[in-house]
């Protein structure tokens, strides 16, 4: 063997072995090369090395070529591949994320993503906003939203708000609506406000494990200062992080997504839903609520409980739901991906909503409203399509 062949062998080998550290990672040995993953991947057709091909490159000891390629940045960590793999290989966390980690270590990342990661590290949020302004959205909300630091007492629910729900003007609306619902149900809750940092999950999926750990540790320390029975979040990414990833770092708290939390109280909520919402509603399963964490029915039950609503399904739903393109770093790879694809996944999904006859596209993840609203402007026939979080629909039905 030549020296270079030996070197190639060790890059491939050491990477291969690192995959086993991921839960169920050894399953990668059993890949059938059926290419279902590459086929279902929404951007697979644009990748030089879609998941299945990455594995074949590994087997051919040519993995350094994969690490030289940039096409992994087309991956939005939507878990479609992981969902369909007949051998249940953890492709997203175990392969795609690991490749991104390697590229990141080599300093090889698109500049948009670089900014988001640098902002996350410096300001605790990927938007580059001042951490001091994280709770500015609660100004003027009545009754006032309790800040844990100010009320200095135990609460029932710690509401982990998240980055976009705190800073993005469109999602702040959803945050305020959720506060209304919590108050209507007399829930004893509090938020961390400025003390909250990004949950870190999208940064983790974009390859920045070290950054994720720093953010998680920061949040963990703050959690320790307060007493609460459980954490509820409006963000499936935060939900995923706190439920599945934080415990690996020794940060363990019971956590639920708002849909589960509210579904549990459905009997209490039903009598409050006084206003009718007369519309056909299609519900979009967010990747990190649906595919990744298996929560499909609670949001649907909540929607169906609203008088006047006709719930329809889009052709891709539940396990086959189409990603909006925002997760796993996708929000910060938008320009990069658009340059190569000239199509946005969010537009694809909006088209589907239109063909299902829906008047409202209901969502349950903070990345979705801005993405779908932008897409709706570009898609023919979608100009009258309304994008609403399930929370907002409930809040409208409950009224002021």
């Amino acid at each position, binding site marked *: 063997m030549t020296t270079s062949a030996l070197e190639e062998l060790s890059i491939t080998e050491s990477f291969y072995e690192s995959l086993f550290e991921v839960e169920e990672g050894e399953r990668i040995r059993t890949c059938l090369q059926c290419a279902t993953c590459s086929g279902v991947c929404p951007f697979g057709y644009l990748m030089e090395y879609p998941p299945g091909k990455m594995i074949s490159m590994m087997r051919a000891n040519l993995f350094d070529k994969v690490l030289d390629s940039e096409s992994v940045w087309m991956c939005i960590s939507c878990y479609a591949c992981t969902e369909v793999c007949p051998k249940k290989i953890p492709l997203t966390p175990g392969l795609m994320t690991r490749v991104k980690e390697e590229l990141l270590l080599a300093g090889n990342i698109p500049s948009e993503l670089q900014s988001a990661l640098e902002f996350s590290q410096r300001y605790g949020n990927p938007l580059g906003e001042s951490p001091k302004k994280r709770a500015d959205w609660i100004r003027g909300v009545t009754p006032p939203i309790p800040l844990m630091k100010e009320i200095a007492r135990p609460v029932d629910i710690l509401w982990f708000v998240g980055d976009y729900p705190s800073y993005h*003007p469109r999602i702040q609306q959803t945050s305020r609506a959720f506060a209304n619902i919590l108050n209507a149900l007399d829930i004893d809750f509090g938020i961390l406000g400025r003390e909250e940092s990004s949950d870190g999950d999208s940064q983790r999926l974009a390859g920045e494990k070290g950054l994720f750990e720093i953010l998680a540790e920061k949040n963990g320390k703050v959690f320790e200062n307060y007493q609460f029975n459980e954490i509820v979040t409006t963000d499936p990414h935060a939900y995923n992080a706190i439920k599945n990833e934080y415990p690996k770092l020794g940060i363990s708290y019971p956590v639920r997504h708002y849909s589960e939390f509210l579904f549990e109280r459905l009997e209490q909520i039903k009598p409050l839903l006084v206003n009718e919402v007369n519309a056909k509603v299609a519900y979009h399963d967010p990747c990190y609520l649906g595919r990744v964490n298996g929560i499909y029915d609670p949001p649907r039950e909540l929607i169906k409980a609203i008088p006047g609503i006709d719930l329809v399904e889009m052709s891709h739903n539940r396990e086959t739901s189409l990603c909006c393109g925002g997760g796993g770093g996708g929000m910060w790879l*938008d*320009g990069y991906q658009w340059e190569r694809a000239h199509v946005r996944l969010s537009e694809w999904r909006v088209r589907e909503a239109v063909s299902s006859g829906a008047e409202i596209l209901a969502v349950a993840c903070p990345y979705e409203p801005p993405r779908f609203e932008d897409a709706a402007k570009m898609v023919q026939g979608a100009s009258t399509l309304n994008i609403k979080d399930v929370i907002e629909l409930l809040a409208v039905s409950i009224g002021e």
Partner: protein
Amino acid sequence: MTQDIYVIIEHLQGNILDISYVMLAAAKELSVTTGGNVTAVLLGENCKELSSNFNADTVLYIEHKSLAHFTSDAYQNTLTDLIEKENPRVVLFGNTSIGSDIAGVISARLGLPLINSCKKFENGKYISQICGGKINVEGDLPEPTALITMLPGGYKLENGKTDKPPEIINYDPPSLDNLNVMFIKYLEPETSDVDITQQKILVSVGRGIQTEDNLDLAIELAKILGGTVCASRPVVDQGWLPISRMVGKSGKNVKPKLYFALGISGAPEHIEGIMDSETIIAINTDPSAPIFDIATYGAEVDLLDLTELLIEKIEAG
């Protein structure tokens, strides 16, 4: 020591740079308080006539072949010699690629105080801007000789010009041997692109545009308004637009009828380039963005949504 104010003139390729006239205007106004004459200091070779419209009491013309093209050490040595001999009260340099290359060195060499990024003078005090234009600093002019670098925008160019050519005095340079910086050649900008300094309508994008493909919206808006797109430095640094489209200190000065600024904060380096615009409209979600201090109209809305709406409405007629 005199009460004279020296203005270090900046010129490139036979053109006097605008900052020189800003400094002359500033010097004229300041001289009312300090007393003393305004002396324009022109270094170069065969360029005496460039001084004909300087609004100054005197021009000191210093000629040497090593001064034909600006190099930091030739200018530093010449001016150190001059200032040491003549002891003016104030020396104005541009806060520029020329002025900032020499002011600091002279300050350290002669042990004279240096004040940076001065915008204007008020009642004999300097007013400087730091921290991206967010903080103003006011202070007395230190003695014996205050070296000051100036930002544009505090004075009108016309006030630095005159139609009565000032008196020119030839001044001997020191020996300029053993120079360490050698000028080789100019690197011309690509001229194949549109000249934004000639455009009447400019749609300008800053960091707020966020991603390269959002640029398409700005380009479309510019098109339907009959103008062109330009940008602040961060956008050009990213490679999203060529340097010929850059507005500001390291770019171009524009004088359009309408300057529509999207997602631009208004740092001094950028403001420099747009001071002579007729109408500036700024869109920025940060209410404290300095650009609102010089804009005619402003709005704190999302620039992408707004641009899309504008395009939609204008096309609808």
